[in-house]
Structure formats: C-alpha cells, structure tokens
C-alpha cells in the first residue's frame, strides 16, 4: 500500500504533464497556422499587386490570374480549416498558397518588365510615325497653298473688264 502511493503520484504527474504537453502542442500548431495564413495573405496581395502592375504595363496576365486563383482556393481552404480547428490542414493550404503567390509575383514582375520594354518600343515607332505624318502634312499643305495661290492670282489677273456693245 505504501509503495503504491508514490506510483499513483507519479502517474498523476505524468498525466498532468502530458495534458500540458498536448495543450502546448495544440497552441503551437494554432500559432504556426495563424502565421502561415498571415504570410500567405501577404504574398497573395503582393502577387495581386504585381499582376495589376503587369496588366497596366500592357502584359497578358490571364495565365498568372489562373494560377493566382489556385492560390486563392488554397487560402480560402486555409481559413476554413483554421476556423474549424484543423490547424495542420490550415498551415498546409496556406503554405501551398504562399508558394504559388511567390512564384506568380516574380513572374508578374518579369512580365511587367517585358511589357514596359515592348511599350517603349511601340511608343518610339508610333512617335516616329506621327512626326513623319505631321511633317508630310505641313509640307504638303505649304506646297499646296503656294500652288493654289499662284493659280488664284493667275485667274484673278486673267479677268479683264469687257465692253459689251449695244449697252448704254
């Protein structure tokens, strides 16, 4: 009976310690999931901003948008899992979202650079075309006016007053 008492105390301590361990592990995984979701949210927004910038630069972003939708599905799933207490699932989904978000962000900035370069070239050629067009218009107009003026004077000088007989 005397030997049983320390064993009982030891068992109780073990049960208490394991409860604490389980509680701490759960709290830890909740924190891990929360920070994974926060990171994924940030990367998703950065990727979205990069896609917007690429789009404004004139790039075709449809492929990037399709991939961000996959990331968005993962992020939505992460939030749902987190609300339901499935912290491991939430962290997994958030990590997948982060990975895709980061890839899309890098690709979007690359596409933006290309689009800006293309836009610069397009602008240069358009400007050259416009300058040439304006120069042709000005030149043709000047020349046209000179010719017109000469003909006009010739026509006016060719007009002479005529005396018609039989009139008073």
């Amino acid at each position, binding site marked *: 009976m005397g030997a049983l008492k320390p064993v009982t105390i030891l068992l109780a301590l073990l049960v208490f310690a394991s409860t604490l361990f389980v509680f701490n592990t759960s709290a830890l995984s909740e924190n891990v999931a929360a920070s994974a979701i926060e990171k994924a949210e940030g990367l998703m*927004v950065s990727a979205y901003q990069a896609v917007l910038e690429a789009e404004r630069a004139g790039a075709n972003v*449809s492929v990037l948008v399709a991939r961000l939708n996959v990331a968005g599905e993962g992020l939505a799933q992460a939030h749902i899992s987190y609300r339901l207490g499935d912290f491991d699932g939430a962290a997994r989904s958030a990590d997948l979202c982060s990975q895709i978000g980061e890839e899309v962000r890098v690709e979007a900035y690359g596409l933006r650079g290309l689009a800006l370069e293309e836009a610069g070239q397009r602008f240069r050629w358009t400007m050259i075309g416009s300058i040439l067009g304006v120069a042709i218009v*000005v030149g043709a*107009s000047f020349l046209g006016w000179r010719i017109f003026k000469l003909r*006009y004077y010739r026509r006016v000088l060719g007009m002479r007053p005529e005396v018609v007989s039989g009139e008073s």
Partner: protein
Amino acid sequence: MNLEEYRTLFAVTTVGLMLTAAFPTLSLVVPFPRSAERFSELWVLGPNRMAEDYPFNVRLGEEYRVFVGVGNHMGSSSYYRVCVKFRNQSQPLPDASNSTPSPLPPLFEFRFLITDGGSREAPLTFEFLEVSHMEDSCLVRRISINDVVFSVDSPSRWDPENKGFYYQLFFELWLYDLTSRSFQFHDRFVGIWLNMTGQF
C-alpha cells in the same frame, strides 16, 4: 471666297490633318477618360447552371448543388472573396442601405481573381447532416458545404403564413481594397431560400 478666306480654310484643314497624324502618339500620352460604369456582378445558378430548378424543399441527407458566379467590370483585374453564410428567418441579412455585411460568421468562402470583363463560377454542394424536428420548431445542427462539415445549431420556428421552416443560404461579395489593404463588403449579396419541411 477671297484669298483670306481660302487661307483660313487651308490653315484649319492643315491643323486637322496634323492632329490626325499625331493622334496615335497623343493617345499613348494623354489619358482619355473612360466613360464605362464600373461594377461587379454576383449570381447563383441552379444545378444545371441555369436560373431555374433551385433547391427549395430540402431534406436531411440529400445533396444539393448550385453554382455561384462573379463578374468583374471594374476596369482592371480584381480580387474577390465570396462568403457563404446560413441564417434562419430571424437572423440578419446584409444591410444594403448602409453597405454593411451580415454579422453572421461565414461558413465557407471562395476567393476569385478575375480579369476585367471576365467572370468565374464555382460549384457549391450542400447537404443537411443533422436536423432535429419538433412540433413547431426545427433545429439544423450540422451542414456540409463542399464536403466540409460545419456546426450551425440554427433553430427555426414554423412559419404559419408560408407553411414551412425557412432558412437561407446566402452569398456576400467582398472586394479587396488596395488602399486599406483589406477586403471590403462590396454591397452585393444573393441567396436561396430553403424550406426544411421535407420528410426526414
């Protein structure tokens, strides 16, 4: 016409032609205002992707399917969040006049990134997993949405006027705002009424 009038005509024509020639470059430099109205669309379709055959009389253990869609006409790609919420007749809907969402917590959610002029649809399958039915009240305990199980514990009283226990599955549209760096309720919601009077 005298020579002065011809000169004016020539000058006006020349300026017009010069502007025409310079227009391609001007259009790249001068931001011309867009007159199109900016808005988003939110819709729910029935199981055949048509605006018909919506689930209405629902039963325990049967699977129902709808499609939720979002259309973007905001002038650039937009990032949306669709919150799926479940309510009984006495619980609040979003307030359209004050642009406030329903205070009920979302059960499921979708996130869509949509290019300008584009749209996206997603299927939503739901099933009532646990429902208690009493004489004049009904309690929906658990519901499954796209294979994820949610505890809702939503009671409903018998509606004598419409003869049923009514619930609503509704969808709120939220739009990501880059200025505040958060999702803002976009003042759009749609829902389907569900009558839990079918045989259990």
